């Protein structure tokens, strides 16, 4: 009887443990998938929004040749001198007193209709509820939706411009890639150099001292790096480079490089040290020098670990927010040199999400930026996966 009971108990426990593991695995996966789904759902909403601000319409004289206006054209009309006359609600308040507009602005649409009728060059930007109806002289411009092309190919990011915000993602995307690219170009030689030193050249004592120190660097909050960059690096760059502003892409790249270094060094060093001692000994016993052993045996054997390190470094650089926000100057312009301010995708999201009304086009555009960031990191890690899959160890002979 008793052993049977015991066996039953054990089996019950095993089933319980299995269920627990399955459950936690499932929950984690589902939560992650839901987050991604949420990201894309919110982001996709952008392409269902109108280009003109929500709740507003553009009206012109019926005889006006204007058919459709792109956000850039609208911006041109309202911000610069053109043959067209921009007209906002404020202009109406300037011309009419409150009594003339009636209680609850009941007479407003009528007055607006008069203004439009008087001036065929007028382009009026008014709340849709006040658009004069039934007047043959007034035509409402059809609102078009924000297009993929305008979003991904747009070179201007002005999310708060009225009447029509500009959501051109190119400057942000290129800004991110620009800053990250140079960060990695700076971090890679330094990181691999430090890795080779630590794993192959440094004495045991030195290594025991340096490794924890470097690992500690990885744990410093990014805002501290940003602060350091802002207080030390930015003024230094401004002074030595004779720049109008020190907050530049270069400052961002340098800070990111410093931040990515501990990750790269730690992971790559582990990979190199994990090269079996037997392989090193085999190489050295055949008369290979230390360097020949490093580049002919240790490097190839740890290539997957090293590429993982590089990718983690890139990932860190691409996704890093705070430090970059603090030192790059945040000008959403197409990057053309390292010595000008740029703005990255994460910095944009962090800086603007607080002021974007939930559900609005701006808000959705920021989510879309998040989607882009997600896709970039997904691409990077997939690439890493493929590279490490081709590693020395798995491949049949070289």
């Amino acid at each position: 009887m008793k052993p049977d009971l015991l066996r039953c108990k054990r089996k019950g426990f095993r089933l319980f443990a299995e269920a627990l593991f399955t459950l936690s695995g499932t929950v984690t996966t589902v939560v992650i998938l839901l987050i991604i789904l949420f990201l894309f759902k919110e982001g996709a909403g952008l392409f269902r929004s109108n280009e003109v601000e929500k709740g507003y319409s553009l009206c012109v004289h019926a005889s006006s040749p204007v058919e459709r206006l792109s956000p850039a054209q609208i911006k041109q009309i309202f911000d610069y001198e053109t043959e067209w006359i921009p007209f906002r609600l404020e202009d109406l308040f300037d011309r009419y007193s409150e009594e003339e507009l009636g209680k609850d602005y009941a007479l407003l649409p009528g007055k607006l209709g008069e203004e439009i009728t008087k001036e065929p060059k007028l382009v009026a930007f008014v709340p849709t509820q006040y658009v004069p109806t039934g007047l043959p002289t007034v035509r409402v411009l059809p609102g078009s939706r924000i297009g993929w092309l305008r979003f991904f190919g747009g070179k201007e990011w002005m999310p708060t411009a009225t009447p029509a915000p500009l959501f051109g993602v190119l400057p942000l995307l290129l800004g991110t890639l620009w800053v990250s690219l140079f960060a990695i170009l700076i971090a890679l030689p330094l990181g691999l150099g430090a890795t080779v030193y630590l794993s192959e050249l440094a004495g045991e004592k030195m290594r025991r001292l340096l490794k924890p120190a470097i690992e500690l660097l990885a744990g410093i909050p990014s805002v501290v790096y940003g602060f350091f960059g802002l207080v030390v690096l930015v003024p230094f760059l401004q002074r030595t480079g004779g720049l109008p502003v020190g907050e530049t892409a270069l400052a961002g790249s340098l800070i990111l490089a410093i931040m990515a270094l501990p990750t790269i060094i730690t992971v790559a060093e582990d990979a190199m040290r994990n090269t079996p001692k037997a392989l090193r000994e085999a190489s050295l016993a055949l008369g290979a020098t230390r360097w020949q052993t490093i580049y002919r045996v240790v490097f190839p054997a740890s290539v997957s670990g090293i590429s993982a390190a590089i990718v983690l470094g890139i990932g860190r650089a691409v996704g890093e927010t705070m430090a970059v926000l603090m030192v790059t100057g945040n000008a959403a312009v197409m990057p053309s040199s390292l010595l000008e301010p740029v703005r990255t995708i994460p910095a944009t999201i962090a800086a603007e999400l607080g002021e974007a009304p939930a559900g609005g086009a701006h808000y959705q555009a920021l989510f879309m930026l998040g989607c882009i960031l997600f896709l970039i990191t997904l691409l990077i890690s997939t690439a890493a996966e493929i590279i490490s899959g081709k590693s020395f160890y798995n491949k049949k002979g070289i």
Partner: protein
Amino acid sequence: MIEAKNIDFYYGDFHALKNISMKMEAHTVTAFIGPSGCGKSTFLRLFNRMNDLIDATRLTGECRIDGADIYHKSVDVDELRKKVGMVFQKPNPFPKSVFENVAYGLRVGGMTDKNRIRQRVEAALTGAALWDEVKDKLKKSAFELSGGQQQRLCIARALAISPAILLMDEPASALDPVSTSKIEDLIHVLKKEYTLVIVTHNMQQAARVSDKTGFFMLGELVEFSDTKKMFLNPEKEETQNYLTGRFG
């Protein structure tokens, strides 16, 4: 000829080898036997200076190969290791093809002529009695070979750079009996061209393959004599006890 004179060796504070002197003639097989931790592997690794890789070691005494002190300041360790090859306890082929494993020593030695490399690789594989088994899989990963084949590949790899001396650190301890006997047969053949020094746990193996045997215990060379003599009529009591299996 290999000659060790008054060798003392320390790992930190641990006195691993105590005043050992020994001479090994060219074209002979010398076996080192003894219980685990007796210092026989440490002693073997002195001759290609593999012990240099370990931190905090200290060596006193003289170690000569063909009359030259191999621990002299002017000695190029990489060159020394090209003359004194080594085969390790566990087969440790590189994660490369069979061909590249054997060619490795040639390539790091600066040989670039493809035809010469091919000839030397074939010769080395033939010398290690492996050519017939692998000639059709030279491009395959060395990991696809069996354990015994891998070990012979490691021997071929060592032979490819034509060393004068071959050190073998328990070369058959990780192998099955059939592979072991192949390695032992190989040792008999290699003796003609190389000076062999072999560490082994297996006393029968020592008896089968070696001309001379050194018995180590607790860092001391207890007895060193002709293998036949040692196995039939050991001088020391410890040797007798070890050989008859009373301890070890």
